[in-house]
């Protein structure tokens, strides 16, 4: 009885309480946990770099859009100015033609 209680007490305070098979099983589970965590962390890291690339691409696309928008606005203003100049010139020329005709008579 005294011997039994000794074995029981020592099994509670030492790993030797588990059998070799159990220890291997626990190690394997721990390894699985570590691998899963590692995979998750690596996947997150890959996603982070991918995200950073896409963010840069987004910034570039936004930049291109801003440039295209600005260029379109500039061209639109130029087009309007040129059209106005054309109309003004046409009307000035009409007046000059009338003046020329009246002077030539």
């Amino acid at each position, binding site marked *: 009885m005294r011997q039994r209680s000794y074995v029981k007490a020592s099994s509670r305070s030492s790993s030797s309480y588990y059998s070799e098979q159990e220890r291997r099983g626990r190690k394997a589970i721990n390894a699985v946990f570590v691998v899963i965590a590692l995979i998750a962390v690596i996947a997150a890291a890959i996603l*982070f770099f991918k995200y950073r690339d896409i963010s840069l691409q987004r910034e570039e696309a936004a930049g291109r859009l801003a440039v295209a928008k600005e260029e379109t606005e500039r061209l639109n203003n130029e087009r309007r100015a040129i059209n106005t100049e054309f109309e003004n010139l046409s009307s000035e020329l009409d007046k000059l033609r009338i003046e020329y005709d009246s002077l030539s008579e």
Partner: protein
Amino acid sequence: MRFLCVVLTFLAIVLSIFLGFGMYNDSKDIERFEKEAAVFEEQSELYRAEINEITPKISALSEEKASLQAEIDAIKRRIIYKTQPTAFLTFDDGTSYHTLEILDILKENNIKGTFFVVGTQIENGGTASKEAIKRIVEEGHVLAIHAYEHEYNKIYTSKEAYFEDFDKIAALLKEMTGLTPKIVRLPSGTYSARSFCERYAGSSDVYYDIVSELYARGYTVIDWNVDTEDYTTATGVTNIINNAVSGAKTRLSREYKAAVILMHDTADTVKALQGVIDGVKDLGMGFEVLVQGGYVTRQIAETEKP
């Protein structure tokens, strides 16, 4: 250990979910931005095409406007002479010491004249000739081109011969004054010049080639419509005055009351000039200089071969 792995995995999954959403949104944004940029670029192309189409039209209109405006200005300048009797005193064949005397008389009367000068006269006339050129410019008269050598049998033998002579006088005046006179009077006038071309070059075509080339170079050719006949001493001072005044008077009955009076660089001209000025003034005429786009008289009106 397991707990740490679980926490790490959990955090990695949460982070991945956030990154996934971010990437999804960014991808959508990129797609949208590219579509919008393509629309803007397409619009820009349309604007560019419109601008490229209108720009040459504007250039053409501007040129047409400038040319029409110049014609209108010229008509307006000429139209003045329908109601405003005007005399243009012109002096050929200078410069010499006579030119200095002519300039003195013009200065006393506060009148400006037009001087059609000859290169050999300037170069062989000593300091007086050069002083005269200087005074013509400084005193506000018009310096105009006649010829370098007043030799019909040289300058009217070909277009090339004429422009060899012409370029010499133009260069001389440019060198002396820095100016490029644009008013030209052909030696002996357009009518005789055409005859000389027939005689010395064998064809009147040479005359038209010369005149059209002068116009192409931006010069204006002007003759006279009143001849004082002061080129010969046989005329005499009194007749020079009479020829000028009677000639100017006949212009008053014309549509354009403008008298371009031909005088030369002679002693008799100097003597007659005050009488000419007084007589023309008595007709109620004012005095002006010949300018481009202003009054033009030519014995042969055409500047191209008819």
